[in-house]
C-alpha cells in the first residue's frame, strides 16, 4: 500500500496574526512555521497503517525551499520519502493541480490531506485533487481503517457521523480522531537527514483567485461584569440588551 500525505507549512497555532503593506501581506516576521496540525494527524495515521512492512508513506509539499524544515519534520515523524514541488503555493487550486500532475505520473493507493490548513482554512485540496484525478474524496474524516484494497472512513456530518466504504484509490482529509499525532524520536530525527527529498519543478497554470487584502476581527468592547450572585441579572441583560435569548 502506497500512501501519499499532502502537507503544508503554516504559522504556529500561538501566532498573533498581523499584516503588512497596507494589509495586503501576512506578516511572517518572527513567525514560527510548523507542519499543519491536521496534516500531522494524517501523516501519523499513514505511518500506523503501513507499519511492519505493509507499505510506504510519501509526503508531498508545494512550497519554496523555506518549507524544507517542515518536510524534514515529517520525515522525522516517519515518512519514507518526500517530494517538494518547487513553487509558492498560490492557492488551493494551484496546490491541488501540482499534486495531481505528480500523482498522474506516480500513482498512490491512498492520498491523505489534513481537513484544512490552519492558515487559509479552505478544505479544498482534497476535493480538488479527487476531481482532478476522477477518484472519490471525503472532506472531513474522524476515523480511517484499511482492509485490503479499500478503506472505511467515518465522516463528520452535522449532529452525527456517516460511515463510508471506499475502494482505492481515494482522497481523504483527516481531522482529530483519526490518529494521535506522533512525536519524532531521536532515531527518526537522525534518519530524516538522509531520507530522499526530491524537488520537482511546478507546472504552469492559470490562477483563478487572488487575495486582495486582510483584516483582523473588529475589537470587542469592554466586558460588562455581573456579580457572581446575580446570575439573573446576566440573563436579563442577554434578553433585553444583547437580545440573544
Amino acid at each position, binding site marked *: 500500500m502506497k500512501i501519499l500525505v499532502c502537507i503544508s507549512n503554516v504559522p504556529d497555532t500561538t501566532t498573533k496574526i498581523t499584516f503588512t503593506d497596507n494589509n495586503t501581506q501576512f506578516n511572517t516576521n518572527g513567525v514560527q512555521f510548523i507542519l499543519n496540525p491536521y496534516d500531522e494527524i494524517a501523516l501519523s495515521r499513514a505511518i500506523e497503517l503501513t507499519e511492519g512492512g505493509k507499505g510506504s508513506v510519501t509526503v508531498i509539499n508545494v512550497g519554496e525551499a523555506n518549507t524544507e524544515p517542515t518536510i524534514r519534520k515529517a520525515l522525522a515523524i516517519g515518512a519514507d520519502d518526500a517530494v517538494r514541488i518547487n513553487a509558492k503555493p498560490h492557492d488551493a487550486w494551484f496546490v491541488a493541480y501540482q499534486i495531481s500532475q505528480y500523482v498522474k505520473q506516480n500513482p498512490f493507493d491512498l492520498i491523505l490531506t489534513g481537513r484544512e490548513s490552519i492558515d487559509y*482554512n479552505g478544505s479544498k485540496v482534497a476535493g480538488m485533487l479527487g476531481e482532478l484525478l476522477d477518484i472519490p474524496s471525503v472532506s472531513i474524516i474522524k476515523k480511517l481503517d484499511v482492509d485490503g484494497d479499500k478503506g472505511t472512513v467515518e465522516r463528520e*456530518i452535522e449532529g452525527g457521523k456517516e460511515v463510508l466504504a471506499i475502494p482505492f484509490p481515494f482522497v481523504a482529509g483527516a481531522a482529530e480522531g483519526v490518529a494521535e499525532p506522533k512525536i519524532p524520536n531521536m532515531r527518526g530525527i537522525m534518519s530524516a537527514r538522509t531520507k530522499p527529498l526530491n524537488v520537482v519543478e511546478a507546472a504552469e497554470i492559470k490562477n483563478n483567485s487572488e487575495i486582495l487584502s*486582510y483584516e483582523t476581527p473588529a475589537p470587542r468592547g469592554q466586558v460588562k461584569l455581573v456579580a457572581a450572585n446575580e446570575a439573573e441579572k446576566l440573563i436579563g441583560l442577554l434578553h433585553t440588551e444583547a437580545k440573544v435569548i
Partner: protein
Amino acid sequence: MSVLIYTENAEGKFKKSTFEAISYARAIADQTNTNLVAISIGDVADDQLNLIGKYGADKVLTVSNAQLKNFVNQAYASVIASAAKKESADVVVLSNSFSGRGLAPRIGVKLEAGVADGAVALPETTGDKFTVKKTAFSGKAFATVQLTSPNKVIALVPNSYHVIEKPAAGIIEAFSAETKESDFKAMVKEIVRSTDKVSLPDAEIVVSGGRGLKGPENWGMIEELADLLGAATACSKPVSDAGWRPHSEHVGQTGIAVSPNLYIAIGISGAIQHLAGISSSKVIVAINKDPEAPIFKVADYGIVGDAFEVVPQLIAAVKEYKASA
C-alpha cells in the same frame, strides 16, 4: 446567466443554514440582475420544496432517485455542476457545511471556477471585479479574495447571513442529471444522527466548558444549561484531548470554528487558539474564577466566580426567565 443555489437537506428537511444560503444567493442574483435557480437532491417533500420559492428562488430543480438518496460527494458534485451548465449559472452558492466543504472544491474544478470557501458577507460586484470576504487564519483574520474566473463557487458560513423572506415563483421542475458510474464508488454504510441534540456548527447558542470544570462527571450542569437554552454543547482543546468530551465538540483553531449569536464559555481561560475559534460569535459570555483570564478580553459579559456556584444559579435564572416569558 443565473445564480444556482444548492439547497442541502438533512433527512428531507432544510435547515436554517440552507435558508440563509438561499437568501444570500437571492441577494447576489439581485445584485447582478439575474435569476436564482435552486437545486435540491434526494427525497424532499413538496411542502419543503415550496419554502425555497418563499426565500427567493425563481425555479427549483429537483433530482431524486435511489442512487442519489444519500449524499455521495462525487455524484452530488456532478449533479450540481450539470445543473449549473444547463442553467448557464456563473455563480454557484452552497452552505459551508461538512458536506458543502466536500462539494465546493469538486464543483469548482468541474466548472473551472474560483472557489470562495468560508464566505461571511455578500460579494462585491463592481464592473468585472468579484470579491468575497472569507475567514482566514482559523478565525484570527478575514481575507478579501477576488475570484478571477468567469465562473464562481461560494460556500457561506452558517449564521453569517440573515434569512430573508422574499417570495418568488419557485417553480418546481424535475431535472435529469448527468452522473457517471465512477461517481458512485464511495458506499454509505451507516448514518448516525443524534436528533435530540443541536448540532454545533449550526447552533445559535453554544454552551462550552473548559478545564475549570475539573472532570467529565461535572458536565451535567453544562448539558442542563444547554438544553434549557436550546444550545449545543462544546468544549476547549484540553478537555477533548483528555477524553472528557468527544473531539467533535472541540471549538478552537484546530477544532470547529463557530459563529453563534451567543457563546457561553465556562471555566475556559481563553488561549489564543480557543479565541480564534469563537471570534465570529456575536455575543460572548465568560464565566471564570480568574479575573485576569484572557477570555474576559473578548467577552461582552462576564461573571468572575466559581463555575460550580455560578452555573446552578444561571440554570435557576433561565428557568425563571422561561417560566415568566
